[in-house]
């Protein structure tokens, strides 16, 4: 039986159950507010958001692989395209694009045109170092780690800090081959 063809992000997004983005936005805002009240240090909040995103990412990748029917990506370029075109679309309903590839194809930027996390948000002067959407970088890092890629994800541009777009830099550090839990000769 031939494997099912990979589905486009829009097709998957149309087929999953959806909720109002504003509930999502407000819930995320409540989370960030709780973190700021508890941790008080902006760097700690950034780290905690990244960790929460990591926890989400390691489970999100299962759902992504199940729903999207993608086959194994040949190289990191394809991986980045998958994240931008299928991943962001099927979970957040937004389109993202990949650009700024470096010479060896291990580092690229993902540009988000639209970001449902930041509707109605303005950073006060006391929180200028906060990466409000840091949960997204954790999600990508966690998801890629579960498919054998160690990456580093950082924010290059953030509209809440005054830039003109949302740009994430995804850098492949190394491929970690899967370890089998049993020896071959047993």
């Amino acid at each position, binding site marked *: 039986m031939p494997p099912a063809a990979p589905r486009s992000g829009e097709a998957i997004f149309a087929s999953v159950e*959806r*909720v109002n983005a504003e509930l999502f936005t407000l*819930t995320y805002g*409540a989370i960030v507010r*709780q973190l700021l009240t508890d941790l008080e240090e902006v760097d700690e909040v950034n780290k905690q958001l990244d960790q929460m995103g990591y926890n989400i990412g390691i489970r999100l990748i299962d759902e992504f692989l199940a729903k999207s029917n993608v086959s194994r990506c040949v190289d990191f370029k394809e991986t980045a395209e998958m994240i931008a075109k299928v991943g962001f679309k099927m979970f957040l309903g937004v389109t993202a694009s990949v650009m700024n590839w470096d010479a060896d194809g291990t580092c690229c930027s993902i*540009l988000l045109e639209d970001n*449902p996390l930041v509707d109605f948000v303005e950073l006060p002067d006391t929180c200028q170092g906060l990466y409000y959407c840091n949960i997204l970088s954790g999600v990508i890092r966690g998801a890629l780690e579960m498919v054998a890629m160690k990456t580093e994800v950082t924010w290059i541009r953030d509209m809440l800090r005054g830039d003109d777009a949302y740009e994430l830099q995804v850098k492949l550090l190394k491929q970690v081959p899967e370890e089998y839990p049993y020896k071959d000769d047993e």
Partner: protein
Amino acid sequence: MIGAGKIKQYANILDKPIGKGKQEVSLSALAFLFSELVQYNQTQVDNISELETRLEDAGYAVGARVLELLCHREKGNRRETRLLGILSFVHSTVWKVLFGKVADSLEKGTEHEDEYMISEKELLVNKFISMPKDMGSFHCGAFVAGIVRGVLDNAGFPAVVTAHFVPVEGQQRPRTTILIKFAEEVGTSLNSLASNIPLLTKVWYAQV
């Protein structure tokens, strides 16, 4: 560069249009986010009632903002001043916008004058949550109870709102009931006016 100039920058966030509220995200994105909220709070507390309080406080913040957003967008900046009015606002408008459907039922409590109940077969946020036995009476719907409390409190109807599981025969998962107990100053008459409401003086500069 492709995409440059596509997102319009607004000097002041109040100038930005607030949108029609039709954008959607996948249910699983919300479920993941909510699970992280609960897991984070579990690490910060020692017992169940503190966990419920924290979830409720998170929901309270959401409710306050939902009230302002919906009052402006859906009702043209009119405030509800009657008890039944605000209850049906929560039961239909708020539920429809947040969860995509009106709540299953709105009932008046028989034992006390100032108690009302909103019931739902399965809360959206609880859809993928199963409770371990040792958590006992804890209900993740405390978040939704917080949202309701936020809406009511900021509309001038202070209340204590809690979420409970009500077992139903024939159904495996129990029904959820949000119990609303209004504070004494709200009064017991159905026509009581909310008299202590701070005037909503914030002005939206939104381009509709």
